[in-house]
């Protein structure tokens, strides 16, 4: 089964390219301290808005900082926020979704209502509300993205788990006197993994977009830390004088968000050919 899923994924050329892009970007982010030609925070007022050169392959920004180095370190921040927040949202969302599906009744009804309320808010508005309450910082950006992605992941889990708990092997485990926790972990969760993994991958892309959006508005990562959304926001004023300052982070955000989306779809198709 595993082998065939991998083969199906490999046959999806777009998904393979997307996965390749993600692996490369992740590697670049991890290796940023070694790959970056300059300190991303080093201000050089004698060399501002420089065009691309051997020393600065993507030129410099309005403070003379190397755009390529900021892009690489920005990948750490942007990917870091996305992975951390989706990871946290997965733990919480899967837990809540399983509990709701397992207990049904009042617990489930309450769960569905609360998630519906959260989903009813436009994502950026919800994120801005969270950041307004918690203050602007990288940590609050992460919380904002968790709050945004939690309901979707929890609902996907619940829907999958509702199907899984009806299976005969779950009934058999129950009849055998297994504990709820054991049944959920050993029988229900593995049966739900496919849609959860696919959804989480797609949501990594949304998380990148949301975090960049917050930073673009000045609510996320604060200067001078490099972050793609913030770089885009500051670079757009210099669009004519130094186009790469805005274009480079913009392209990076687009490619990575798109890659997560394509890879997530490919993953779903490969793991669950029926769907």
């Amino acid at each position, binding site marked *: 089964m595993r082998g065939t899923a991998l083969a199906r994924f490999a046959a999806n050329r777009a998904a393979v390219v997307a996965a390749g892009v993600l692996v490369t970007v992740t590697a670049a982010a991890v290796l940023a301290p070694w790959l970056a030609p300059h300190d991303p*925070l080093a*201000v050089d*007022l*004698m060399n*501002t*808005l420089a065009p691309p050169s051997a020393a600065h392959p993507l030129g410099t920004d*309005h*403070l*003379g900082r190397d755009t390529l180095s900021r892009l690489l370190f920005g990948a750490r921040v942007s990917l870091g926020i996305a992975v951390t927040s989706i990871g946290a949202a997965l733990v919480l969302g899967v837990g809540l979704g399983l509990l709701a599906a397992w207990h049904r009744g009042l617990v489930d009804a309450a769960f569905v209502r609360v998630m519906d309320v959260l989903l009813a808010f436009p994502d950026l508005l919800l994120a801005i509300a969270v950041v307004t309450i918690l203050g*602007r910082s990288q940590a609050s950006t992460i919380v904002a993205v968790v709050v945004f992605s939690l309901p979707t992941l929890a609902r996907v889990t619940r829907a999958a788990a509702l199907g899984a708990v009806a299976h005969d092997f779950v009934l058999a485990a129950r009849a055998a006197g297994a504990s709820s926790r054991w049944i959920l972990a050993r029988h229900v969760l593995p049966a739900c993994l496919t849609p959860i993994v696919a959804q989480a991958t797609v949501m990594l892309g949304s998380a990148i977009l949301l975090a960049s959006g917050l930073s673009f*508005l*000045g609510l996320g990562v*604060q*200067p*001078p830390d490099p972050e793609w959304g913030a770089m885009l*926001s*500051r670079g*757009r*004023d*210099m*669009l*004519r*004088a*130094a186009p790469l300052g805005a274009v480079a982070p913009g392209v990076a955000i687009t490619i990575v968000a798109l890659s997560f989306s394509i890879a997530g779809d490919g993953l779903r198709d490969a793991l669950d050919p029926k769907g």
Partner: protein
Amino acid sequence: MGDDVTAVRAGAALVLAALAAACSGAPPSPGGLRDTLIFSAPADATTLDPHNTTDTESDQVIQMVFETLIGFDDDMRIVGRLAERWEVADDGVTWTFHLRPGVTFHDGTPFDADAVRRNFARVLDPDQRHKRFQLFEMIDRVEVVDPETVRLITAYPFGAFEPTMAHISAAIVSPAVAERFGAAFGTTAEATAGTGPYRVAAWRKDQEITLERVDDHWRGTPPTRRIIYRPIAENAARVMALEAGDVDVISRVPPPDMRRMEQAGHVTVLRTASIGAQQFRFNVTKPPFHDPRVRRAIAHAVDRRAIVDTLLAGFATPSTSALTPIMRGYANLGEIPYDLARARALLREAGYPNGFRTKIATTPRYPMGVELAEVLASQLKQIGIEAPIEVYDWGTMVQFWQGLPPEKNPQEIFIMGAGASTADADWGLRPIFQSAPTNENNYGYYSNAEFDRVIQAAMRETDADARQALYRRAQEIVYLEDPGAIWLFDNYYLVATRTAVEGVTPSALGTVTFTRATVRD
């Protein structure tokens, strides 16, 4: 009036006259001149009620539609407008204005002494809560002598009375229209009427304001029939609109674009020394900023030359005082030297040999606002001061400046643009640095007893030399000895036009006048 004639403009007028003569009788664009000029600023006017606005983009339109009794010419000298002559009595409080006869408002109401009286009654009525109430609070009463003579009596001899009366908020609005529309005056084209060379023909909020010229205005008929104000918020988009020829004139151009366009030579780049200055203020109630030595140390740690030459692309000048050189009462105290050794010595003296941790609040609303904070942070690091940056949108930033008590205000170092629109030392210093809490515009809670005394004395001083000496002392205190801010640079007001545009005059007050502007086909 004398203000309307300079050599350059006389030349432009000659060319115009020649063009007009060459193609006379060819409506609607005689002599290859367009009948419409399109101007783009970052924002729309919020209101066209001169008594109720404090933002430059509103003033931008207001100064074309309304006139004051006396005003500033292009060189910031005070000249007559709706008043032909004026004088002050020996008591120093009785000002008599002799009004220009035969002027009517755009709605047909005649302009006379009673209109002036009703205008000041309007702005000084505390119940109407006009934003400019405070600016004119020294006026005790207004007396109509005859239809062409009006007397304003101040509560005390006020040294800055003329520049205050030249402020655009002292503009005279049509009393008939003002009384008909009440609080809605200036919110639509119909609810706006002044005596200016242009009247408001249409206003679609956040899209377009159309001004139509007034024929046979007492200042002459402007050459261009229509002026359209079309706001474009995004700086890069505004610059591109100019370069594409979609608009004729833009204001608030990002300095790097100014340099690029100046070098390319495909547009005309205009700069005017302005009343505007950029600075970061200290919240002096937050230790260690209560210690003037710490503030002086920071002043020496900032390389203003480098900031001006690079970030501002040379389109600014390093500050030399708490006021800008074109303001009345300015004293040149020199640039504060960039001297890290001195900065470290002062910090040591104050008990912070290894620096400390603070934070910098900024907003992108100011040109290069975020970038300036980043440079400041990187320069403070050189003397051991760690200062993370907090970027706020304008709305949030303004909340910190709404008269909060100091203990409720978390800001420590915060960006601030200064620009006293009377171009006078009184308005440039008193509202900002006179001790709180009597003064809620003192966002940094600055307090210096000597400064307060000097400012109060200067305000009531009408002798020009004595006044200048007092303001010099005030600037020495707040700029050098007990600094209230990290003074950075004096702004130029930056305007760019298509090369087909002539006769555009940017004012030091941050507005552009189009009464002599032409656009060639």
